[in-house]
């Protein structure tokens, strides 16, 4: 902390390490007392310095080595972001092993495939919940020999021979180190940048997950390029709150963490993230659109509950922000002095306090990635003065392909390719990529590798898009999702869904229309926002199913749908995609029911199949339809939910009439 920022920056950029364990050793040597990780325990942030971390990693590595973990083996990492799980990842890499982070909310049955595919014998997990899951999984995958857990709560009386606590492992490691001093240094020296650094299973909207293999070189070169572009230093604060299995989280809080040497903060629990974020005040932040949506919904709900003068003030200044905020952030010189004054007043009264309560006061760079973000949502954050930028990439490209540069953010593009990345668009409109961060291959799946990576090394993204006149990439949709209406107009479901999801009352939407004559949509209400809305109207309801079926809620949703239609009518490309009919689903779409991927993307094909009766009923013009669906509870049991859903029409607008209305 005593060092001057510039000295630190210079030191970070001078790091020569080409593998993660080497980077760790360099940080531990160069700035041993700087904070590497922080975790909130018992209400207090506890710091692990780089020196302590290196020490811990060495002990874990020694413990794993003693258990028989060796070069080329896979180590499953399952849990929330916990410092010792991070340490275990580096330890595995130091031994030449390959960490495989997995989604902590997946049920055992979903994990079996990955365990078998990667022949996993060792796992480091967070707690009892995960241990129980793996003990269950072991019956189908006897190869699993060792389960190491971080949090001993509830596990004291387990007598299963395959489990041990990470404290025990560390203890054994320290004993082992007495006879083998300098193990970490020696083993880290044996790591090559072309070793596999980690394997990520893609959530996959279709079929079995595929293991994406990235080398140290892949991940580190991409992380360095991105850090250099945003001038990240060892002083950044990052909050690690998304699943480690998602490559986005892994790049931001693992690869870039070790590449740039900043501090990663682990929240107390999943439910305290927003409070922890206010306390930490991250300077470098990333969030998939659904998180930003949820935050906006909360802000909207709280504003609705505020007193009338506050609401008026909020509305007035948010209008100002919408008008000029984005332009000011982009450094547009044509904004008038009066508007600037007004915006500054708004900053004092509304935007500043709002940024503070979102925990974004200190954010220098914020990214959104993982999915396309609705332009309205995106502009909302930018107009508040938060430097939110879109990022394009996928698991296979180690995230960074395109980033919107500071000052040149166009909401409908994802920016120009980064340094070292080349982009080509095929005649059919598919985006192809060459980048140092490209996956080496899919694990044990040469056929799938050949499908996406051609002989010249171009990666086929499966996204439809084009480069605009400034060289910025514009993504339209997944190539296979973009269809045509029976009338020949383009149908891009994601675009419609994002527009719908901008409304706080709509949590999820699924649009259908490929080769049909009109577009219809399923809507998932946001239970919190709609519940709050209903309460304020003294509308009583017994639960989700009841609320979702209320006539009042239907008319609320219809208003949202019609606003979207009015917007679409004004866009000549999209006016044919107006939503003619819709329904409100009786249950939330859920990853446990396979309706969403673990990263919460809609699995459109699966939903179309599962709810086929509803789709047909919408097109047949019926006004109600009975449906029974299976649901899976968090503990793995299944049950059935049935309901008679109402199907309603929404008003659509003629292109010209709507233009007047929208103007």
């Amino acid at each position, binding site marked *: 902390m005593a060092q001057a920022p510039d000295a630190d920056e210079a030191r970070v950029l001078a790091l020569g390490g080409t593998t993660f364990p080497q980077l760790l050793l360099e940080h531990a040597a160069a700035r041993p007392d700087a904070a590497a990780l922080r975790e909130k325990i018992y209400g207090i942030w506890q710091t692990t310095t780089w020196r302590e971390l290196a020490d811990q990693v060495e002990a874990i590595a020694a413990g794993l080595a003693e258990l028989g973990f060796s070069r080329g083996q896979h180590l499953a990492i399952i849990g929330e972001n916990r410092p010792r799980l991070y340490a275990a990842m580096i330890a595995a890499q130091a031994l030449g092993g390959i960490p495989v982070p997995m989604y902590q909310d997946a049920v055992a049955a979903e994990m079996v495939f990955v365990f078998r595919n990667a022949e996993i014998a060792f796992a480091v997990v967070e707690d009892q919940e995960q241990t129980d899951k793996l003990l269950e999984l072991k019956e189908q995958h006897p190869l699993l020999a060792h389960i190491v857990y971080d949090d001993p709560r509830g596990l004291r*009386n387990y007598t299963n021979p395959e489990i041990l606590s990470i404290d025990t492992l560390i203890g054994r490691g320290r004993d082992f180190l007495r006879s083998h001093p300098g193990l970490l240094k020696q083993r880290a020296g044996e790591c090559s940048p072309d070793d596999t650094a980690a394997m990520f299973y893609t959530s996959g909207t279709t079929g079995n997950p595929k293991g994406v293999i990235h080398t140290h070189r892949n991940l580190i070169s991409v992380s360095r390029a991105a850090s250099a572009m945003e001038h990240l230093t060892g002083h950044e604060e990052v909050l690690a709150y998304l699943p480690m299995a998602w490559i986005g989280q892994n790049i931001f809080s693992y690869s870039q963490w070790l590449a740039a040497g900043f501090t990663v903060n682990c929240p107390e*629990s999943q439910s305290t993230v927003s*409070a922890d974020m206010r306390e930490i005040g991250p300077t470098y932040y990333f969030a998939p659109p659904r998180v930003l949506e949820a935050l906006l919904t909360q802000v909207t709900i709280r504003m609705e509950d505020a007193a009338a003068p506050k609401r008026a003030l909020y509305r007035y200044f948010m209008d100002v922000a919408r008008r000029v905020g984005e332009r000011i952030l982009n450094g547009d010189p044509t904004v008038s002095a009066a508007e600037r004054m007004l915006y500054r007043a708004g900053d004092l009264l509304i935007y500043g306090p709002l940024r503070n309560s979102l925990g974004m006061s200190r954010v220098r760079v914020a990214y959104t990635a993982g999915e396309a973000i609705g332009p309205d949502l995106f502009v909302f954050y930018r107009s508040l003065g938060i430097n939110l930028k879109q990022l394009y990439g996928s698991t296979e490209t180690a995230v960074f392909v395109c980033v919107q540069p500071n000052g040149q953010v166009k909401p409908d593009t994802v920016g120009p390719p980064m340094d070292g990345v080349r982009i080509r668009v095929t005649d059919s409109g598919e985006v192809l990529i060459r980048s140092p961060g490209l996956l080496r291959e899919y694990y044990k799946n040469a056929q799938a590798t050949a499908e996406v990576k051609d002989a010249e090394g171009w990666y086929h993204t499966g996204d439809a898009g084009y480069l605009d006149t400034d060289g910025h990439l514009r993504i339209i949709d997944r190539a296979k999702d973009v269809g045509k209406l029976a009338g020949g107009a383009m149908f891009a479901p994601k675009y419609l869904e994002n527009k719908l999801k901008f409304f706080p009352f709509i949590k999820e939407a699924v649009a259908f229309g490929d080769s049909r004559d009109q577009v219809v949509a399923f809507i998932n209400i946001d239970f919190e926002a709609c519940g709050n809305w209903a309460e304020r109207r003294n509308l009583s309801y017994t639960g989700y199913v009841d609320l979702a079926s209320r006539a009042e809620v239907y008319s609320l949703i219809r208003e949202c749908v019609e606003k979207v239609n009015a917007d679409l009518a004004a866009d000549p490309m999209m006016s044919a995609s107006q939503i003619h009919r819709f329904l409100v689903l009786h249950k939330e779409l859920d990853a446990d029911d396979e309706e969403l991927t673990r990263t919460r993307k809609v699995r459109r094909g699966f939903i179309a199949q599962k709810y086929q009766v509803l789709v047909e009923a919408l097109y047949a013009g019926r006004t109600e339809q009975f449906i029974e669906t299976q649901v899976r509870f968090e503990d793995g049991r299944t049950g059935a939910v049935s309901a008679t859903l109402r199907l309603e029409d929404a008003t659509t607008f003629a292109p010209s009439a709507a233009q007047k209305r929208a103007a």
Partner: protein
Amino acid sequence: MSTRKIGEVILDLRNISLAFGGVKALTDISFDVREHEIRAIIGPNGAGKSSMLNVISGVYTPQQGEIIYRGEHHTHTDPHAMATHGVARTFQNLALFKGMSVLDNIMTGRTLRMRTNILQQAFWKGAAEREETLHREFCERIIDFLQIQPYRKTPVGRLPYGLQKRVDLGRALAMEPSLLLLDEPMAGMNVEEKQDMSRFVLDVNDEFGTTIVLIEHDMGVVMDISDRVVVLDYGKKIGDGTPDEVRSNQDVINAYLGVSH
């Protein structure tokens, strides 16, 4: 799965009778509680369950009978004395300080363990400050244990009922009890909240070895989590034994399902 050892009898209730004027709340009831076990008291409404708990915690003094707690005979007890002996309880209708934060409510559970006097605490220097730090740490462990970190600073009155119940349990745990009395810990909860609460009760028993006596209406919960069950009806004991024994007891079936005469 659990390997905890059920130990000796620590609480022995012998021939307890309690009456309020002409109303006989409890008549000649005897049962015991062993160390580390989960002991449930069940019975229809008005059976005398809460009265029984109040006798154990010292709120009511029975007209007849004796209570032997850890080898000591008690005929006249009071709640303060029982609390200093390591008996803590939660309440059926919650008795939390609604305007105080979750943390402060749990801190009140540490009162008996505070050693500094009011003057020291007013100046909050030296011993008082150190003491508060220690107690705060203990409370933070409970907050972590009960997973109520997001509400640490929230006034209890603003929390939903299920969470208030958890705070009530937290306050009882802050006393580091060796015997914990839970008065309908799951009343008024939905299935999910009941599952959570059952998990916490089992965890408390498992992690801290706390002996637990609980009153509960939900038969499923009682049968799942308790080691032994005592059944009351109209102030009399009609059954006592393991969940299986109690379930097949004809008197119990009659009391619960009614019987045609």
